[in-house]
């Protein structure tokens, strides 16, 4: 049990009076990729947004329960969500580089706004993060151009580089490829597999083939409940739950 880096215990979430998540227990092992699947509106995005306390930024939204990060409950009253978010990076559905910032400024935004100003460090981090995000070769001559001038797939990898720049041990990805073409998608999938060596990845996806290709474990959500969680290979081949089987065979969702 102590082998988990991040663990949700009895986690529930609401939007106003609507309950979006019901008593979720889920844990993530270090250096693994966990895929969250399920039909739209099943709470998987809400779930990962609870993991870095972003859920509560939506007016009227709240969460209850525990999320244990490296032995500490991030929902403790004394915990500053800002510090938690530095340990848990996030990539969103839509590529969202910061407007009016150059490629490089985008990558180092997290460091710069945390007070790191040394040019040599920023340069080093830019190169390392962009290489890690498999974008360096494409943008090394465009570091001072606006981040928004890149293509959609490049923008998404820029956002990944931005998240990696602060070296978080955990990376959350909320349908990172749903707005991208197949080639960009393949690049990002390859990237996720590489990232596993140095961090723990939690990825929400609508694409079951994608989940099967890149994840070690898969969790299936339905209407705010966690239905099934297990090794990806067994969940897709011998699901324990009837509803999981129906979903992965396309009977609903």
């Amino acid at each position: 049990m102590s082998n988990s880096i991040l663990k949700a215990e009895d986690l529930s979430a609401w939007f106003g009076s609507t309950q979006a998540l019901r008593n979720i227990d889920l844990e993530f092992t270090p250096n693994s990729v966990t895929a969250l699947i399920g039909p739209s509106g099943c709470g998987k995005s809400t779930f990962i947004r609870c993991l870095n306390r972003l859920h509560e930024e939506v007016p009227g939204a709240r969460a209850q329960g525990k999320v244990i990060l490296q032995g500490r409950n991030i929902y403790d009253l004394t915990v500053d969500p800002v510090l938690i978010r530095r340990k848990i990076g996030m990539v969103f559905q839509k590529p969202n580089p910061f407007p009016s910032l150059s490629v490089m400024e985008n990558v180092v935004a997290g460091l710069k706004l945390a007070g790191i100003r040394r040019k040599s460090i920023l340069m080093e981090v830019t190169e390392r993060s962009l290489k890690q995000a498999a974008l360096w070769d494409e943008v090394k001559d465009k570091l001072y151009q606006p981040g928004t001038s890149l293509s959609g797939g490049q923008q998404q990898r820029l956002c990944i580089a931005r998240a990696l720049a602060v070296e978080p041990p955990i990376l959350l990805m909320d349908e990172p490829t749903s707005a991208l073409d197949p080639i960009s998608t393949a690049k990002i999938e390859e990237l996720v597999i590489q990232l596993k060596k140095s961090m723990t990845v939690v990825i929400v996806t609508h694409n079951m083939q994608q989940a099967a290709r890149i994840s070690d474990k898969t969790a299936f959500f339905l209407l705010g409940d966690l239905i099934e969680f297990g090794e990806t290979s067994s969940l897709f081949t011998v699901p324990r739950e009837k509803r999981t089987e129906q979903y992965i065979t396309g009977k609903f969702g």
Partner: protein
Amino acid sequence: MSILRKQIGDFTRLRYKRRKALSLWMTFVLGLAAVAASASLLAVFSYVVLRGAPELTLSFFMNLPKPVGEPGGGMLNAFVGSLLMVLLASAIGIPWGIATGMYLSEYGRGRFAFCVRFCAEMLSSVPSIVIGLFVYVLIVKPMQRFSGIAGAFALTLIMVPLIARNTEELLKLVPQHIREAGLALGVPRWKVTLWIVLRGSLSGVMTGVILGIARISGETAPLLFTALNNRFLSLAPDQPMASLPVQIYTYAISPFEDWNRQAWSGAFVLILFVFVLNIMTRAIFKPGLGRVRD
């Protein structure tokens, strides 16, 4: 082919012709309205240039008004006064307006924000003479004196709601997921607001600021009984202060021909200043530069 069908065919053909003709007419009317609108601007501008430009000499900028009856003299007092009051108003009004806009867009929720927004809208549509009256009661009366401060404050009150509303609108164009991306990086909310949201919309915000400056540079009514006027060069903010619009007003309604001529020159300088500001804004802050694809 029945007779009936032929008749229907004739009818629709006729209707089509009439519709085409009407369409042509209406397009013409709209075009005329557009031409008339831009022509009036052109007429105002060219008339002011014609009357004001020939009289414009260097001494007009360098000299103080001469006593009545003596020819010559300039509007140095008015240029300096306007500059001082607009600078003072901007120094207060720009940060105040941007801060209000940031509050409305980023933090304002519920009834209070609604009230603030409503007040800002009302304030920006209050006739500027009323703002002058208000400042008269608020500052001039207690101080027992017309002053540059009172004038600058009246201009500030005109500027703040303009900048606040413009800033709010522009910041609201920044999609929510951009803010979330900042928060998710472990950046505190105030830094996200300042360095990501505001910075991302800076070109639009600055356009609003410059248009605000242009607007208050030409305001006459709020200065009439706040700053009044001053025939001498005065840098003291607690004394009556001259301004270009009020000087133009005073000279224009005077019975002296020389003053009337100078009023035209003053108007020419004012209109040129506002034009240059407007054009500069468009050149420097190209629209859409800071926009975000949603």
